[in-house]
C-alpha cells in the first residue's frame, strides 16, 4: 500500500484500517511499493488491462482490503490472501527472536559486569539494631504471588519463543514438543492469574508510587548507585516508581493482548491476533529485562533490599540510606522496633524467650 492508494481506504471498515495502520507502524518494514498500480490505471483505453492481473491484484489485496464470500463459514474464510501474515512472520523470525534474545542476554551480561565492577551495595553504616516495618503481610503475599506467577509465565513463554533455536538441538523434537506443549498449556492457564495479581498489586501500591517532588533529582543523579552519595527518596524511589509504572502499563498491554490471544472466541480476525502477539512479545521482553534488574537488586545487588519482602521489616540504617525521607518520618513516629522483637514475631523457632518474659513479668 502506498500513498496513492490510501484514499481508497476511506469508506472501508474503520476497524480494518486501524489494524493496518498499526501493523504498518509496528512492523516498520520496508514497504513493497506497487508503483505500477497507479500508472496502469491512468493508461489510455487502447491499452487493455489484463483482467487476470486485476483479479490477482484483488486477491492479493494490493489496492484495498477485499473479502470474498465462501460457503465455508468462519472468521476470515472469505479472505484469500492475508498479506500481514508474512509481515508477522518477518517480525517474529527476523526481529523478535534475534533482537529479543540478544537484548536479554545483554542485560544478563551487563548485570554480571556491573556486579563485578560495583559489587554488592553495602549498608554503609552497617546493620543497625533496629528495624522498620516496611511491608505488611498482605503486601508481601501479593508480591510473591505475582512473582511466582510471573516467573512461571516468563519461563514458559521463553521456552515457546526460544525453544526452537536453543532447546531442540539439545532435546530433539519429540521431547521438546512435550516441553513446549506443557509450556503452552501452562502459559495459557496461568496467564489470567497474572491479571489478577496485577490488579491486586496495582490497587495496593499505586498511592505510594505517584511521582513526587525530588524524584527528578533522584533521576538526574542516577539513583545514587553510580556516585558515592545517596539521594533522598521517599517510600519508593524514582527507580522503583518507574518500575511500578512500567509493570502496570506494560503489564496491562501484556494482559490485554494475552487475553486477545487465548480467547479466539469473539470473532477476532487473524490480524488482531498477529497484532496482539506483537504487543505481547515486545511487552514481555521489556518486562523480563526490567524484572531481571529488579531481581538483581533484590538478590545480590544490594544488602538489605529483600528483607522487607521476606519478613516485613527492613533495617533502619538501610532505610536511612535508601529511603531517608520515609525512614526519618517513621523513626519520628516511633515505628522503629528492636531486632529482638522482630525475631520474636517472625522467627518462631524458639519458644523460650516468651516463657521467660512471662515469668519475669510475673515476678
Amino acid at each position: 500500500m502506498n500513498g496513492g492508494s490510501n484514499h481508497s481506504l476511506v469508506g472501508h471498515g474503520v476497524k480494518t484500517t486501524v489494524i493496518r495502520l498499526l501493523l504498518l507502524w509496528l512492523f516498520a518494514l520496508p514497504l513493497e511499493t506497487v508503483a505500477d498500480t497507479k500508472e496502469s490505471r491512468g493508461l489510455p483505453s487502447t491499452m487493455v488491462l489484463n483482467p487476470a492481473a486485476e483479479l490477482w491484484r484483488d486477491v492479493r489485496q494490493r489496492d484495498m482490503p477485499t473479502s470474498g464470500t465462501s460457503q465455508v463459514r468462519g472468521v476470515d474464510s472469505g479472505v484469500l490472501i492475508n498479506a500481514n501474515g508474512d509481515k508477522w512472520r518477518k517480525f517474529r523470525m527476523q526481529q523478535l527472536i534475534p533482537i529479543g534474545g540478544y537484548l536479554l542476554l545483554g542485560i544478563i551480561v551487563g548485570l554480571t559486569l556491573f556486579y563485578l565492577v560495583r559489587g554488592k551495595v553495602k549498608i554503609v553504616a552497617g546493620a543497625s539494631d533496629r528495624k522498620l516495618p516496611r511491608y505488611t503481610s498482605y503486601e508481601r503475599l501479593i508480591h510473591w504471588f505475582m512473582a511466582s506467577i510471573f516467573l512461571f509465565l516468563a519461563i514458559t513463554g521463553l521456552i515457546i519463543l526460544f525453544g526452537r533455536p536453543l532447546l531442540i538441538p539439545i532435546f530433539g523434537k519429540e521431547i521438546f514438543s512435550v516441553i513446549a506443549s506443557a509450556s503452552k498449556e501452562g502459559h495459557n492457564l496461568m496467564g489470567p492469574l497474572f491479571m489478577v495479581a496485577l490488579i491486586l498489586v496495582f490497587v495496593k501500591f499505586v498511592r505510594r508510587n505517584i511521582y513526587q517532588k525530588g524524584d527528578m533529582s533522584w533521576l538526574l543523579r542516577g539513583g545514587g548507585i553510580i556516585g558515592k552519595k545517596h539521594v533522598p527518596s521517599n517510600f519508593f524511589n524514582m527507580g522503583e516508581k518507574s518500575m511500578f509504572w512500567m509493570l502496570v502499563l506494560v503489564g496491562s498491554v501484556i494482559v490485554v493482548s494475552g487475553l486477545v490471544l487465548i480467547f479466539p472466541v469473539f470473532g477476532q480476525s487473524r490480524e488482531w491476533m498477529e497484532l496482539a502477539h506483537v504487543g505481547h512479545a515486545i511487552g514481555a521482553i521489556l518486562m523480563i529485562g526490567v524484572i531481571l534488574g529488579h531481581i538483581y537488586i533484590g538478590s545480590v545487588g544490594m544488602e538489605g533490599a529483600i528483607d522487607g519482602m521476606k519478613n516485613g521489616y527492613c533495617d533502619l540504617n538501610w532505610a536511612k540510606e535508601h529511603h531517608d525521607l520515609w525512614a526519618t518520618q517513621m523513626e519520628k513516629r516511633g515505628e522503629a522496633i528492636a531486632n529482638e522483637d522482630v525475631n520474636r514475631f517472625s522467627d518462631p523457632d524458639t519458644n523460650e524467650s516468651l516463657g521467660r518474659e512471662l515469668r519475669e513479668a510475673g515476678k
Partner: protein
Amino acid sequence: MSDRFEQGLEALRQQIDARISSYFSSCVHCGLCAEACLFYTETQDPRYTPIYKLEPMKKLWRREHTFWGKLGSIFGLSEPLTEKDFADWETLVYDSCTLCGRCSMVCPVGNDITYMIRKQREGFSVAGYAPDGMKEATRRALKIGSPMGVTYKTLKAALAHVEKDTGLQIPVDKKGADYMTLFSSMEIVNFPEYIESIARIFDATGVSWTISSKAFEATNSGIQIGNKEAAAELVNRVVIAAEDLAVKYVISPECGHAYTAIRWEGPNLIGRQYPFEVIHILELLEQLKAEGRLQLEYRDATPMTLHDPCQIVRRGGVVQQPRELLNSVAENFVEMKDHGVMNWCCGGGGGVSANERAEPLRLHIFDRKKKQLQETGVNTMVTACANCRIILEEGIEHNEMDTEVISLTELVADHLTASSEKK
C-alpha cells in the same frame, strides 16, 4: 524423669478420645484461630495462636495415634513428649488462654480448641505445671470450700448485712424449697449487692428459695486448672447439699465458669445425672418475666451495652435471655460490634484472674475490650459474671476510662415494681 511427669503424661494420654483425635486429624494449620484469639490480636505474637498452645498434646497424639508417629516411635525417630515441653508450654496453656471458646467458633474444620485446652490442662496440672495462683485457689477450694478462702462465717456476716438492709428474711438450709442458690466467692466478698438483689427479686416474685450452709460456693477451680478429681469433689458437694435439701432447681449465679462446671461438666465429672435441674439466674429471671411474675418498671434512658460472659453465653447457651432482660430495663441498649456468641473475652476467664503472673499480659490484652467499648460510645456496661466484672473494672481503672460496670441481676432488681415505688 519424675513420677509426677509420668502421671501427667498418663493423665494427658487418657484425655485423647475420638473427639480430640478427629480434631487433630482435621487441623490444617491455617492459623485462622489466631485471628479469633485476643491474646494474638492484641500482641501479634504468633505463639498465642490457639492451636499452637496444644502442641504438647498434639505431640503425644501424633506419637501414639498416627501411622508415622507409631512407626517413628519403633525406630526412635518420633520425638516423645518431654517434661521440658510441659515447662515451656505452661505459660501458654494457663496464662494466655481464658478458655473463652472464641477460637472454637471460627475454626473452619470445626475443632473445639477450647475443649482441647481444657483437656490438656488435666495433664499439665497432674504433672505439676500449673500456675501457683491457681494451685493455691484449688487447694483452698478443696480445703476451705472457696478458692478465695470464704467460709460460711463470712457468708453469714454478709447475709446478716443484707437482711438488715432489705428487711427480708434469707432462708438458709430450708428443706423442700424450689430453688437452691449458689454464689461465687467474688460476689460474697466484692459484690454483696448481688445477694441483696436476689433476695429482693425472689421476694417480689414469690420464689421459694434457700441457701445451703454446706455448699454455697458455685465456683470450681478444678475445671480451670484442669483437675477432674478436684472438680468432681467440688461439684459433688453441691449435688449432695441439693439432694439433702431436696430442691428442684439449683441456681447458678452470675459467674461464668461456675455455670459450665455445674451445668455442663458436673454430671460427667461425678458420673451420674442430677435429680434436680441446674438453671442460670438469668434464665430464671427471664422465665419469671415471661410468666409475668417479674414485674419491671420504667426503662432507664442511659445508653447501656452488654458484655457477654463467655462461659454463660458462648459456652453455656444463655444467649437471648440477657438481651431480653436488658431490653426490658434499658431504653438504649447498644450491642457491641462482636456480641453474643462472638463476643470478646474480658481477659480474666479460665483461671487467668487467679494467676498473678499473667496480670501484665491480661491488662495488655484488655485493649480489645477497650476498643470495643469505645466503638459503642457507651459508658455503662452490663455484665452477668462477677469475675468479668472485677476484671473489667481493673482494666477500666488501668486505662483510666470512665465506664461503669454493673451486674444485670442487680440492674433488674433496681427496676422491680416495688423498688421503684420505694424510690
